[in-house]
């Protein structure tokens, strides 16, 4: 008799812990061929609120960490992901070669963003030569808590939207790919073991249409990345809700995740602080 495998229970990732949904709900996740893979947690409004609370709590520490430190931690995430290369390739399914390429691309993307942590201020800040005896310097600062609706690509897509948000010091709540959330939760395990402080990234699995509007209208969320929203009407409602506290919004987009990402995803969730001081003796 062959050995019966021990299956994994996929839960949410909130504040560095892996709780089930407080609602007690789950939904079946199947492979593209329709085979049952697992029951994923179906997060509720309350779970989304808990995740925002966790992200807010983590913000002072994470935004206050040195860019060098944040870069080190992002690189550590890449290291841990590399170590689980085979597991992710299997979990992503599809052709083995394509799956391995996707994992490698995700690792490389993390490394690329890790290197930006202590360079973005040089590229997106400025020394301003004002017409008077004043020291005047502009530097980028994180916006705060960013809610992200991740695209369908469960690993490379997820890494491509989360890394630019956190490398600059924001914390986030992510709604993982609805049809294929499993790799996203496994990525959460990587994050949990990568020195990333709990609460910096929070991952919710469940219904995009149910969770996104709550996050879009949450008054303690400062930014909204709608990249993964596929329903134009849902995107419109979310963007309108985001206007209430003037969240910074990244609109839905079809992106080629293998292409060079540029710095736009980082700058969208950055503020610029300009400091003046008189110069004299």
């Amino acid at each position, binding site marked *: 008799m062959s050995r019966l495998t021990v299956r994994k229970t996929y839960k949410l990732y909130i504040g560095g812990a892996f709780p089930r949904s407080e609602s007690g709900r789950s939904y079946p996740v199947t492979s593209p061929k329709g085979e049952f893979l697992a029951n994923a947690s179906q997060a509720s409004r309350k779970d989304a609120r808990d995740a925002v609370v966790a992200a807010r709590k983590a913000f002072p520490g994470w935004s206050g960490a040195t860019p060098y430190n944040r870069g080190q931690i992002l690189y550590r995430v890449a290291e841990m992901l590399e170590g689980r290369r085979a597991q992710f390739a299997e979990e992503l399914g599809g052709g083995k070669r394509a799956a391995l390429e996707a994992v490698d691309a995700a690792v490389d993307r993390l490394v690329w963003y890790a290197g930006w942590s202590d360079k973005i201020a040089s590229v997106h800040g400025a020394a301003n030569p004002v017409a008077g005896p004043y020291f005047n310097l502009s530097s980028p600062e994180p916006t705060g808590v960013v809610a992200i609706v991740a695209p369908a690509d469960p690993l490379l897509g997820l890494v491509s939207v989360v890394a630019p948000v956190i490398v600059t010091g924001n914390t986030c709540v992510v709604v993982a790919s609805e049809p294929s959330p499993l790799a996203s939760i496994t990525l959460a395990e990587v994050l949990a073991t990568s020195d990333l402080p709990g609460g910096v990234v929070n991952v919710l699995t469940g219904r995009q249409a149910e969770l996104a509007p709550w996050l879009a209208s949450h008054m303690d969320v400062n930014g909204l990345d709608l990249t993964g929203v596929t329903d134009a009407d849902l995107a419109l409602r979310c963007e309108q809700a985001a206007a209430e506290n003037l969240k910074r919004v990244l609109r839905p987009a079809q992106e080629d995740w293998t292409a060079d990402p540029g710095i736009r995803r980082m700058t969208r969730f950055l503020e610029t602080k*300009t400091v003046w001081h008189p110069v004299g003796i």
Partner: protein
Amino acid sequence: MAIFEYAPAPESTDVVDIKPSYGLFINGEFVDGSGPTFKTINPATEESLAEISTATSDDVDRAVQAARKAFGVWSALPGAERAKYLFRIARIIQERARELAVLESLDNGKPIRESRDVDLPLVAAHFFYYAGWADKLEYAGFGTKPLGVAGQVIPWNFPLLMLAWKIAPALACGNTVVLKPAETTPLTALWFADICRQADLPPGVVNIVTGAGETGAAVVAHPDVNKVAFTGSTEVGRIIARTVAGTDKKLTLELGGKAANIVFEDAAIDQAVEGIVNGIFFNQGHVCCAGSRLLVQESIQDELLASLKRRLATLRVGDPLDKNTDVGAINSADQLAKIRELSEIGESEGALRWSPACELPERGFWFPPTIFTGVAQSHTIARDEIFGPVLSVLTFRTPAEAVEKANNTPYGLSAGIWTEKGSRILWMADKLRAGVVWANTFNKFDPASPFGGYKESGYGREGGLLGLEAYLDVRASAARLGGLS
């Protein structure tokens, strides 16, 4: 009591020749608007200055079409040629600075001392600054592709300066514009239209449509506008953000504020007092980044307030055209009513109101410089933007408490810090959630320096290299930026 009195020193209005009525400026021509006319008045006298056209949505459509047509020509010009047009405009502004300053004070009510010495030099400087960028865009890191037609709606507090902030970078980057000035202060924008003609700017590159909220809404909602830029209240900013939701329009918003001006016990008191006065009484407090919440360290509260009150007693309130005037007229009857209402709420909630003895003119809209002490964080006057010469005074004991109180607002436009200790300035500047932090100074502006808010004070920056981002198609340049290899 004053030791000696100042003689009146009024600036002559001979330099401006205001016609009885004005139309819209579309495609290089002054044309009649289709809507009803309205009067723009001198807030210091309540006299009518001119009849102004209301642009209907049809008029706005004509303006947008003119801008769209001109976009082909303007965006195709080499940057160096666009630069020369902007340099020309800057020079004409300098040449006509006195006329524009007088006009601004007549229409807005601000002291001539400010329009002449602050607004106009900055207006010219903005055009000079962005003129220089027009042929250097590839060095800024946002690509060189303009967005198209920019719809811009600006407020009444700095009519010509806000016009410069909007138009100069838009044109430098190759966009064309449809701009709506505020209904209470349209005159300098119409003068600017004439400056565009003197500069031989191609028709349609700059279009000015006048009117109130509905005209602005038509500009923002027009389907052929590619970029919306707004400066004004957070309330209207929210409506605009909702309007452009679901479209491809790029949006920048410069909204309200409730800035904390924080004074530590080791601050140079006289300088701090000057900074506080400049922070809240400059331009009658009609400043989105006004230092309207004074946070003073408890140990020096009495000393600072005594100095502040003594200083306030020397402020001269009155005729905006008098060169000795420090505080001019409130811009409109509506704004005056709002300031009065919020001040009354301040009293009814238990704060203590104080104003220096000053005689206000009988006609016009006036409000004396006012201080509220005993203000708690929960008070309306500590939370809501008053947009008038009203200062709320709160106290703190430790730097951490100052940070907490300063950040305890949905706004995040600006903040001030007064202390002689450098490391404390840097610590505070780091902790304050605000777009501009003035340390041992306040209300300083420069075209080279980015300005804009955190949180509900809006998004995007105006001024400096970063101000170019708002008027360039950053998406189109993402590949270039990341793909230097």
